[in-house]
């Protein structure tokens, strides 16, 4: 699929209702025309002038196959439909991708920040195939709390709420992407030095409660290693992890499996 998309500039619109879309996206939907069996994932192909050329429903051949069969067929169907449009546009059917990795960044590349990678483990419905990647800035509040100190101290997890709030799975259908509660006490300890830097670790257990209807809760160890120069107490770089298991419920709300969630945190290198 990635290879088939390589010649294109890819963009997206997502929302709760089609009516939420901006006018330019609504216009494309009008040009396509709504069909009775339309699923919630549509793909539009536009030419270099931005004009509508082709569209298809990512799950159009879903009937009467069960959903797991549809999911298996989706990639080949996607490529087949994209190639149809490609022929009309004169786009090469197959081309090797030229990666332009723009893994989510901060609005201003000069801001200090962390990138948070959330990877979910195997699960019954084969969800979460692509890791989640979020970029979060390091603001004054976090900088202040994470300043170097040789003294051991306790830090409330809520200080790092903006980072921790990203540590949840995708597809929480009855949620709004937020947390009801984030609790825990972290221990900050100096962790030696070498010729060029000083280090500290920040460790503790964090408990999360999501804002969805069933208030999914989970907890796990959160560990950071923090790096400082020898001349400044300001945080220079950071790496860390959080590991847990997330309860997954069936349609009746009964927990049917626990899915592992591994989080990696790393500082985003500052642009020069």
């Amino acid at each position, binding site marked *: 699929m990635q290879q088939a998309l390589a010649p294109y500039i890819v*963009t997206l619109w*997502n929302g709760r209702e089609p009516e939420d879309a901006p006018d330019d*996206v609504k216009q494309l939907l009008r040009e396509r025309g709504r069909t009775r069996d339309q699923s919630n994932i549509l793909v539009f192909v536009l030419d270099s002038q931005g004009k509508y050329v082709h569209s298809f429903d990512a799950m159009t051949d879903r009937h009467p196959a069960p959903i797991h069969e549809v999911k298996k067929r989706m990639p080949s169907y996607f490529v087949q439909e994209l190639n149809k449009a490609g022929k009309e546009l004169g786009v090469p059917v197959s081309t090797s991708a030229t990666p332009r*990795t723009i893994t989510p960044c901060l609005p201003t590349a000069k801001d200090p920040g962390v990138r948070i990678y959330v990877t979910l483990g195997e699960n019954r419905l084969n969800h979460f195939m692509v890791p989640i990647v979020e970029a979060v800035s390091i603001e004054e509040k976090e900088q202040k709390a994470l300043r170097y100190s040789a003294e051991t101290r306790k830090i409330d997890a809520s200080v790092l709420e903006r980072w921790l709030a990203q540590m949840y799975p995708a597809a929480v259908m009855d949620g709004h992407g937020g947390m009801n509660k984030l609790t825990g006490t972290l221990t900050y300890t100096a962790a030696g030095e070498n010729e060029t830097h000083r280090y500290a670790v920040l460790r503790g257990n964090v408990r999360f409660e999501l804002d969805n209807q069933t208030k999914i809760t989970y907890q796990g160890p959160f560990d950071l290693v923090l790096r400082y120069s020898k001349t400044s107490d300001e945080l220079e770089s950071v790496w860390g992890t959080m590991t847990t298991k997330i309860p997954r419920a069936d349609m009746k709300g009964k927990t049917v499996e626990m899915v592992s969630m591994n989080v990696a945190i790393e500082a985003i290198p500052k642009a020069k």
Partner: protein
Amino acid sequence: MRRLALLLLLAASRMIVGQDATARTIYDKALAAKPKPDKLKFYDLDWAGNLTQARQRAQEEKRPIVLLWVTNITAGCDFFTGHT
């Protein structure tokens, strides 16, 4: 060969996070938890932030556009980060 690779890895993590064993362990775990590049290929697509930006670039670069349109009654999904 494997032993040499392990020694090099240990030397590298000592350079980056110092001599403290706990700091080294956390650093190594963070590196191991970071998804490998082949899992992040979705982010290698040539993304534009929205349709307006995509149209502007398409004209300049003479390239076509693919727009992914997704609705979810209970929660939206941002394909760019993978989160709601």
